[in-house]
């Protein structure tokens, strides 16, 4: 059981890091997506930076929300997160985002695609980590249920 638990802890720390950078990538994708829609006439005219800042709470909140029923904590980013953040920073620069209204249509689409690909790869790694963690946890749960492990030994 200690080995199982260690395997889960390692995978969970990686999952935590990947989830963090995934959310950051999604946020940047949503900011770029907002500009694309604005140019197509779909959003208000807040094309300058103050307008963008004002819209950030709407852009960055996801209305569709489920909960996974798991204890959720907010941890410090680990080394995997910091490494992935550097990769993401290489994909999109500060100027791309705050100056998003000054990019031409072609560059805007390019940035959108690049961040989208990065987000998709993170989501795919995250799904694999979920499968791994959930398999381990079903086994840990089974051992508790079948009495192979008791809470007292753990505590």
């Amino acid at each position, binding site marked *: 059981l200690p080995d199982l638990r260690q395997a889960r802890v390692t995978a969970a720390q990686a999952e935590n890091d990947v989830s963090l950078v995934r959310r950051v990538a999604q946020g940047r994708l949503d900011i770029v997506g907002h500009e694309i829609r604005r140019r197509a006439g779909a959003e208000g005219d807040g094309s300058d930076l103050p307008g963008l800042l004002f819209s950030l*709470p709407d852009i960055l909140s996801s209305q569709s*929300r489920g909960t996974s029923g798991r*204890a959720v904590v907010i941890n410090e980013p680990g080394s995997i997160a910091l490494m992935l953040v550097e990769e993401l920073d290489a994909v999109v620069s500060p100027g791309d985002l705050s100056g998003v209204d000054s990019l031409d249509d072609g560059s805007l689409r390019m940035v959108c695609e690049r961040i989208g690909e990065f987000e998709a790869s993170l989501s795919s790694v995250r799904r694999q980590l979920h499968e791994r963690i959930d398999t381990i946890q079903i086994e840990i749960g089974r051992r508790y249920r079948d009495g192979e492990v008791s809470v007292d030994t753990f505590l």
Partner: protein
Amino acid sequence: NASELDDVWTRYKSNPTQEDRDLLIVYYAPLVKYVAGRIASGLPQNVDQADLVSYGMFGLIDAITKFDLDRGFKFETYAISRIKGAVLDELRSIDWVPRSVRAKAKSVERAMSKLEAKLHRVPTDEEIAEELDLTGDQLNAIYNQISSLGMVALDEMLSFGAGGGENATLGDTLADRREGPGGVYERVEMRQMLAEAINGMGERAKIVLTLYYYENLTLAEIGRVLGVTESRVCQIHTKAVLQLRSKLTA
């Protein structure tokens, strides 16, 4: 691109302008999405996530103005803790947990402490209901009402704000977490106190707390271990947290 980011930081720190500050805010704002998403997961569905993001933005702006380039921390690490603090502080200040629910939780805790002092063991639901002059169903309804507010409400009822700026919640203290530069000993001691308090509880409460916080199983997975419904796990969890609180504040 990494050097463009470094340039903005260096430029901003040596000569803070609104323009550079806004640039940094937009660039790092998605960190607020991350924090708000996680906190939202522990709140009832009717809480507007956009509000959480606005609260978090204050924490981000604070982090940008206060960040010290030479201290050697990563900005993301520093910003995440400021953003989380800002969201939780604002939630507390708008007192989002309904007074009536808070009052009911307090009365259940008082009954628990009183009974535990008298019986020298953790009281059963029957005993607690009797003490409060309620039926078993009415007591369960109270547990359900508290659970429906989500995990942040329960965390709040057991938050260990002794550390100052970074308010540690029950989840933070119990769950696996990498220790940050500060507060390691405080959390280890807290974990110890909590482990001892959990050890003195009933079997099912112990299992739910251990599996939820230490083994990080979902409520549904815990239900399968205990052979009960997920909503029953929720009730046991709520009761266990109230019990923990009554023990630790006794």
